[in-house]
Each structure stands twice: as structure tokens, then as C-alpha cells.
């Protein structure tokens, strides 16, 4: 079965983007977009629909099994991981549109510079100032928050985030939840202030990011927990003891 990959290509930031269609023969129903891009790039003669030779497609990948977030891109208007996207999903239409994430500067083709994600975490002082230990009640929260891939998919759909806003988006709120769950006392005042200013206040609660996370992180639960601890100062619920 053949499928048309309609890829938004761009040589570099200074050049105009253009759509290019490359036809691809799907090997089986489990073939992912990431495997297809790898396969196409391994050819010595990549050709577009008209049979015109074209250059390799620039994109980022690493784990190929949705554990690293490298291959995030916009696929049929939805931010997703290429390694988590089976091409057989698009079998009916016979075509899929593949574009780079739009909230980050494009390096070339589908590769974007997501440095802002990491710069934001540094600006927000996203670390423990002192040694800490996750208490047993917080293990689930800590585990869930630690799964964040920093892929940027949640920011892509966020109506309140762009690179220069004070609001740093869910890609900051999730890691913050890990810290808030085990924050040393000495750090609480300042970090909660940061949380309110750069995370809580800017969030319009659209929850557009709710079902976008490729890791399936329960964003809503983390947000509620962190808001409760950092904004409303409600201690975390403890399991009721049987009497």
C-alpha cells in the first residue's frame, strides 16, 4: 500500500518553506512515520512525486519507541511523535501532512530548535536546592512528573504559550510538580512564587494539552496537585488509616 507524505520542507530559517510530496510504500500495518522517514533517508536516490531527485529530510530522532520525545512534529495538524504514528492510520485518505512544530524556530525541514524548553527550566530554577527524599505518598506524583519527555507537544496546542510569554506552559508545570511533591522547606517560598507567576497565573485552563501528551502523563492531576500545594497551600491528601 502506498501513501503520500506531504512534507513541509525548508532548507533553513532564511529560506521559504514549501510542500513536497514523497510517495512511500508501507511495509506493514505497524510501519511508523519514523521508520518511513528513516527508510526514505537511507535511499541513495530520494525522489518526489514527480520523480525529481530531492535531498534527505532533516528531522530528529533517537529512541524510536516514544520514550525520548525527539521526533515530535505536527502530523495532520496534530502534534505527535513520529515513532508513535502508524501510517496505516491514514490508509483511507492515502495521504498524511507532516510539518515541524510551529512554536519553535525551524532548523531545517522537520527539525526545530527546542532550546527554549531547557532555558525556561533553568530560568525557573527547576532543581532541588537541598537533598530530599520522595515520601511514599508522593512517589506516584514524582514518577508521573518524571516521565515528561520535553518534546514540546503540549506547548504546540497551548493557547497561552509562546516563546516570549511569562507563562512557561505545561512543559514547565509537569517538572515543577515533581519538585513541589518533595520540595525542601528552604526552597518553598521562592519556588511557589515562581510557580504562581510563571505557571499558575498564565494558564487559561483550556486544558488543550490534556490529551496531547505522547507519554500519556495525567496532566490534569499534576496541575491540581501542584496548584493545591503551591497556590492554595493545601497539604497533600494522605491515605485514610483504617481504625
Amino acid at each position, binding site marked *: 500500500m502506498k501513501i503520500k507524505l506531504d512534507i513541509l520542507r525548508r532548507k533553513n530559517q532564511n529560506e521559504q518553506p514549501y510542500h513536497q510530496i514523497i510517495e512511500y510504500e508501507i511495509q506493514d500495518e*505497524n510501519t511508523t512515520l519514523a521508520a518511513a522517514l528513516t527508510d526514505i533517508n537511507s535511499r541513495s536516490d530520494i525522489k518526489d512525486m514527480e520523480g525529481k531527485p530531492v535531498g534527505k529530510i532533516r528531522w530528529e530522532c*533517537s*529512541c*524510536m519507541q516514544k520514550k*525520548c520525545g525527539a521526533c515530535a512534529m505536527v502530523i495532520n495538524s496534530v502534534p505527535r511523535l513520529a515513532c508513535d504514528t502508524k501510517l496505516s492510520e491514514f490508509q483511507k485518505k492515502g495521504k498524511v501532512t507532516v510539518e515541524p512544530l510551529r512554536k519553535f524556530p525551524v532548523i531545517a525541514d522537520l527539525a526545530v*530548535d527546542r532550546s527554549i524548553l531547557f532555558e525556561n527550566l*533553568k530560568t525557573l530554577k527547576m*532543581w532541588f536546592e537541598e537533598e530530599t*527524599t*520522595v515520601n511514599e505518598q508522593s512517589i506516584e506524583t514524582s514518577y508521573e512528573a518524571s516521565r515528561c519527555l520535553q518534546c514540546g507537544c503540549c506547548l504546540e496546542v497551548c493557547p497561552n504559550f509562546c516563546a516570549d510569554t511569562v507563562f512557561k506552559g505545561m512543559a514547565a508545570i509537569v517538572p515543577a510538580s515533581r519538585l513541589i511533591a518533595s520540595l525542601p522547606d528552604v526552597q518553598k517560598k521562592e519556588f511557589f512564587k515562581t510557580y504562581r507567576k510563571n505557571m499558575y497565573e498564565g494558564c487559561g485552563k483550556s486544558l488543550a494539552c490534556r490529551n496531547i501528551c505522547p507519554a500519556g502523563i495525567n496532566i490534569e492531576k499534576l496541575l491540581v496537585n501542584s496548584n493545591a500545594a503551591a497556590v492554595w497551600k493545601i497539604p497533600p491528601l494522605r491515605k485514610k488509616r483504617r481504625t
Partner: protein
Amino acid sequence: MDRINIIGAGLSGLSAALTLSYSGISCNLISLQPSERAQSVLAEGGINAALDTMGENDCIENHFNDTIHGGADMADPNAVDGLTRNAPAILYWLEHLGVPFNRKNGKIVLRNFGGQKKKRTAYAKSSTGKMMMTSLTDEARKYEAKGLITRYPHHEFIRLLLDNSGKNCLGVRVKDTYSGELIDFFGTVLLASGGINGVFPHMTTGTTQNSGDVTATVFSQGVRAGNLEMIQYHPTTYGISGKRCLLTEAARGEGGRLYVIRNGEPWYFMEEKYPELKNLMPRDVVSREIYFVRRSDDCENTVYLDMRELPEDTWKHKLSDLREEIIKYLSLDPKRDPIPIEPGIHYFMGGIDTDENHRTNIGNLYASGECTCQYHGANRLGGNSMLGAIYGGKKAAESILQSGEKESAAEPSFSVCEKDDSDEYAEEASAERIRQIREILLDGLGIVRNENEMQNALARLKRLAADNKLNKREQNRVCLARAMLMSALERKESRGAHYREDYPAKNDDYQKTTTASFENQNIVIRFRELPKRRSCNNENKT
């Protein structure tokens, strides 16, 4: 002391960067992608330390013995002594960085893992690597803000800068993959660049980032390699689009059982053949048994992992991610269905040869993590890879600290090459050549090997090497691949992951480290005696 240049931002690179930072020494952390994309995030099952929280009277000496024996008596005993002795302190350090290890009554819970007679593997469900990487990345960020760690993500290693003698490292040349600029960083270099997965593209459980080019390049530049023939085939993997996926050993640690259909009935062959450790024999043994039963006339070709009897609590609290992955990729539910598995390439015990202080044969050049051949001998035990990476990074950084003056340079020392500069090492290897090398190596370096197949593979590589159209990286890959095959050919015995059907027995004449060097355009294989263990004392205790 100048800034230290660390290549690789996975567990080992981060561990080294933090060790340097704690001593006030600054470093450049250079990696192709950010830490979040490193292969370390894929590690699942856990990390070993003789914490003895399960009431089994475990101790460091047990951990030492299991590691040495699991590695078929081929690892440096002094290095393993340091590794196992420091493991508990490393675990508590990680715990205090906020790693959400599974705990009960305040204590870290330990699980069974292959080749170990006691529960010794700490874990965070089945995403232990990701949990540890998140904590270490956060910790490193604190020192980034202080200027002690300067990250250079999206920077690719191109080659070492060596002095005229070729015996001292002056720095490293890297390429900014966003701008295309070549940059030279001067000063001591620590390679923490991971395993050489890329010599077997799409056939390993690793990432595409670990191309093997770093090891291939430095080998061609004169850095000695060791135990290159030792390639770990993990017993339980499955194929997905474009790669192999790991089915963690923790599944067997928690009660998963291997079987094959023999004469129409399930045969739990590991339990029958190895009544003591059963399904938890070391990985080399299990993979080999799977290989043989699949070829047995009275058995079907497929081996299954049966996890149907695992308790609900185990799926919920210990292996939740694993179940989700299997359902997603195989459309099978391990609570209900036996899972078909096959051995797949998972880890390279061999790599850059270092001493126990992680020094290579080149001055000012160190190496740690999976790119080295330090701790695992002929077969790595599950749960020792992350420990080896973290301890190795720490130990390498400590060696660097001991070697130099403790005065930190305030600014990075580097120079950007002229715009029109190019470097023959920077040209990528073609996909066709990479594929050819992979096919040849797979034919020669399978789970079961023999002289003929390896000689044939070597002859094909020699023909490939004679092609004068190969670019530098392709030449280097061929050179490394030849060294791997030559190492395997010279070891005329079976030991650990290296099983030869023409020499099926272990031969103690070969209880040595295999070394490979590229000298005067020739690959030279030698054997080096293993050191004796100094003594079982507390000198390394931290």
C-alpha cells in the same frame, strides 16, 4: 584546571559532570541531543546495590562475586570491587536527588534479576532509567545555572585533537549540527558516548544517536579497545517498526517464565535445565538456550514469555509501563497472552579500553559508561549497566580531579574553525555502507559463532575496506568491525557472550582481556592478563 570536555549527556556523562561540579571544576557537556533523548532513558528494570533491605543477608561481597561470575571471570576485579562497594552510596545519593524508587515502609524495595541469588535490584516501576535521568538532569541544571556545567547540545563529536606524537589528547573537535560550524574545545576529554549500537542499525534495543562513530573514530586515531567480541544478546526482545524493543528482565524477576512448545506441550526449558536460578540465569546463558531450543527438531520455532500468573499488584506497581508497551506494540495483553520473544542485541561489554581509573592509553583522554569495557567482563548482569555508567562517570571524574590542579577556568576555552574549514571526519557514512557492515557482522557475530563464518565475514570486510571510495567514517566503521571480528577469531574458546561451536568449552588460557589496537594502519589483537584483586577492604568506601 581547564574545563573538562565530556562527550555524552547520558547517565555517565551527567554523573561525571556532577562529580566535577561538586568539586568546583567546570565542564562542557557536549551531546548530539539533550539528556532527555539519551539512551539511558530507555533503561527499564533497575540498578543493583547490596542494600539488603529485603532481609536476605545480602552483602557487597555477594554483589562482587555475582558480577565477576556473571561476567565469566573476565572483568577487572579491582574495578568491580570499586563498583560494588560504592553501589549502596550511589543508590542513596540517587534517592536523595528525588528518584522515586519503589519503597515499602521507608525502605527501597529490591527485586530479583538474572544471575543474582539475592534481591538486589532497586527500581522505579519499569522506567528506572528515565526516573534517574530526570533527577540527574535537574541536579545538573543547578550547576548549569552556576556556570560550572556548560551544555552544548546538538553538537556532534567529530574527532579527537591529538599532539604530534598521537599519544596525548589536546581536545576535541565537534560540529554544531544546527549551524554546521566546526568547533575545537581544548583540554581533557572524557568520552561517555554510549554503546556502538549503530554498527547494527535497527537490530538493537538502543537509540539511533549511538551510531558507534565515536568509538570507531577514536579507535582509528589510536585509542585502544578491549573485549570487542563481547556483545550481549538480551534474551527477551521483540521487533517493532525500525528497531528492537526490550522486554525487561524484571518481567522474569517478578515471575515471568520462558517456554517453547515441544511435542505439542509447553516446555519450561529454563526451569528444567537450571533448577536453581531457572529463568533468571545470566543473559548469555538464557539467550543461548533460546537459540538451541528454537533449532531443536521436537520444538516449535517460537519461544514465549509467560507472564499470565503475575499478580495484579505487580502489574500495577512494578511493571505498569511494560504492559502498556506490549499492548501498544504487539496488540497482546501479557496478563492474558504469552508473549513471543527473541534474543536481540542489547549491550556491548566491549569498547574503549581503560584502566580501573578510566584512563585510556592516550594522555588526557578518559572514557566511562557503555563505550568502555570496564566492569562486565564477558557478560553484563542486568541492573549493573546503570550502576556501571554512574559509578564509571564518577570514578573517571575523580581520576581527572586527581590528575590536575584544582583551579577552574572561568570561561570555556575553544575556538571556532574558519568558515571554509572542513574535516574529512565530518562526512556522514552512507546508509548503504552502514547496511553492508551490519549484514557482515550479523553473519559473523551471532549468538553462536564459528571460525568459517567469522573468516568469511572478515574477508568480506577486507574487500569492503579495499574500496577506495569509502569516506573516512566508513573506513573507520569497517576498521572497528574488523577489530570486532578479529577479536572474536583470536579468542578460541567459549566464554560469556562469546560462544563458539568449534571451541565450545571455556579455556582458562583465555581468561584475559582482549585488546585491539590500530597501529601503523594495521589492526593488532593481543591478550592482557587480568590483575589480581588487591584485597577485600574498605578503602574505596564512600
